């Protein structure tokens, strides 16, 4: 028995070593990024794989924070993502309730149409939306991001929400209607509380995809002051082409908000992605 236990221990040790080696392969470029972000730009050249920053150039971060106008872009990102998430949640609730719980002839048709939206690559709408938003006069406006972000988050959100509603007993909301409760009151007072797990999943998935979204921001925005964080990082890395240490510092700062969120909510995020990815 003790030999078996020893064998088991050994096998476990071997697995940990293997997994660790692979994690190193995955994360080493990030270690390199942080290391080099603390060097002087002139010290980049050389053949060392990692360099001990002597002394660490923390002012890279100070300069990048100011010249990269990071606080402004963080705020823009938060605003755009916050509004997009809120609207997506509202629409997921109302649409799913109407499509799943109320009986009307075209409900199935509309459900399929909305779900088909999951298959449309955002890239095929970039050119026409560029024109539509120009004509509507909302290019260079937060709405030119919020509208497509909501539109492209909605299909997956409805997919998750309608799936979750299947497990909620119909009697719950039907009896409320019979008791004279209005439809909107049912959605927000009865459906919303019981579908909290689905709402959390939708919130996380929508937030992550909006937070990291780049190509629409690069297409619909040209005003410097409205840029979201990923687009700002892109601009900055091009603008300071030769100043590598500043570029690296900006890239590290760009990862901090997402990683912070990830370390706090890792369980919910991982669970949400497992749910969402299957059909995303």
């Amino acid at each position, binding site marked *: 028995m003790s030999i078996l236990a020893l064998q088991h221990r050994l096998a476990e040790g071997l697995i940990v070593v293997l997994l660790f080696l692979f994690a190193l392969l995955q994360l080493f470029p990030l270690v*390199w990024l942080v290391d080099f972000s603390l060097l002087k730009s002139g010290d980049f*050249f050389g053949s060392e794989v990692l360099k001990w920053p002597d002394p660490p150039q923390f002012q890279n971060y100070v300069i990048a924070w100011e010249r990269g106008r990071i606080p402004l872009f963080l705020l823009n990102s938060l605003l755009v993502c916050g509004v997009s998430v809120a609207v997506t949640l509202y629409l997921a609730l109302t649409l799913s309730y109407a499509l799943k719980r109320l009986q009307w002839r075209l409900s199935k048709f509309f459900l399929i149409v909305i*779900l088909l939206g999951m298959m449309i690559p955002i*890239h*095929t*709408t970039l050119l026409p939306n560029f024109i539509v938003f120009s004509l509507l006069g909302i290019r260079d406006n937060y709405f030119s991001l919020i509208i497509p972000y909501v539109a492209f988050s909605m299909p997956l959100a409805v997919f998750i929400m309608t799936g979750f509603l299947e497990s909620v007993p119909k009697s719950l909301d039907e009896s409320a209607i019979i008791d004279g409760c209005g439809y909107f009151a049912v959605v927000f007072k009865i459906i919303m509380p019981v579908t909290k797990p689905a709402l959390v999943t939708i919130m996380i998935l929508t937030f992550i995809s909006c937070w990291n979204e780049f190509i629409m921001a690069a297409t619909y925005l040209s005003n410097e002051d409205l840029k979201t964080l*990923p687009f700002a990082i892109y601009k900055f890395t091009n603008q300071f082409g030769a100043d590598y240490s500043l570029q690296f510092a900006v890239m590290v700062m760009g990862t901090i908000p997402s990683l912070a969120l990830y370390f706090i909510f890792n369980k919910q995020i991982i669970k949400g992605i497992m749910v969402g990815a299957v059909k995303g």
Partner: protein
Amino acid sequence: MHKSNRTTIVLLMAPGLLVFCLAILFPLILSGYLGLTDSHGISDARFIGFQNFVELLTNDNVFWSSLLNALLLGLGYVLIQHPICVLLAVLLDKLSGKLELFFQILFFIPAMISVVVVTKLWVNVYNPSFGLLNNLLQAVGLGDFKQEWLADYNLALPSLLAMTIWIGFGYGFLLYYAGIKGVPEELYEAARIDGAGEWRVLFKITLPLLKPVIIVNVTLAMINALKQMEVVYLATGGGPANATQFVANYLYSKAFLSSEFGYANAISVVFALICLGLTIAFDRFTKKDGGLV
């Protein structure tokens, strides 16, 4: 249904449908129209029938090579990334508690980082003068293999595929890991009691039970490969000389770099149709695992 109900349905559905039509449906229709013109921008479009589409499908090598690149990326996902994901997921499943959670969190870190940062990071890893890759080669005595990874016509595509596969690893891993977590523990125990070795368990129990998960993941990988854009746009812009071109990036550069707006919209329409067709085909194919339509 009584009248109040009809008003309610309209009130509940209208905002969502409005957004949907404004940002997805109407643009697609507009794209279809613009694809039939020789538009160079917002105004002065002339209707030219199916000329763009004929040109695209019969005479555009870049378009076809973009599709081929997408296929190569898809195969790279399936043949290189997925086996590693399955292996690591199986290994991780054997651990438990804090240790399991620790690695699970670790493996997904790169997937959480914005595509802009990860791509720019990799552009620097490949940098010929100070990049991590060349310095690593130098450090292990393979200095002769130092390359201009993304600038060399023959190396650009493999280099781009490698980084794209690295970037997508976290999601691939998580999907397989979720699938493996779904295999009932009793099956493993029963097999072990019967004296089956680890490899036998893997090939006789885990993989066969994982079949539906594998089918879904392979489908997703092919579709994601087809939709690839951001990494290409940020790393190489499709160059050098279209060696790393992908469809979405191609239509984008046609529209905004060479102002062939009508032609770009024709690519866009064909692209949307390919994606839609492929998804529906795969969906039919995997119908018994819960199809969408």
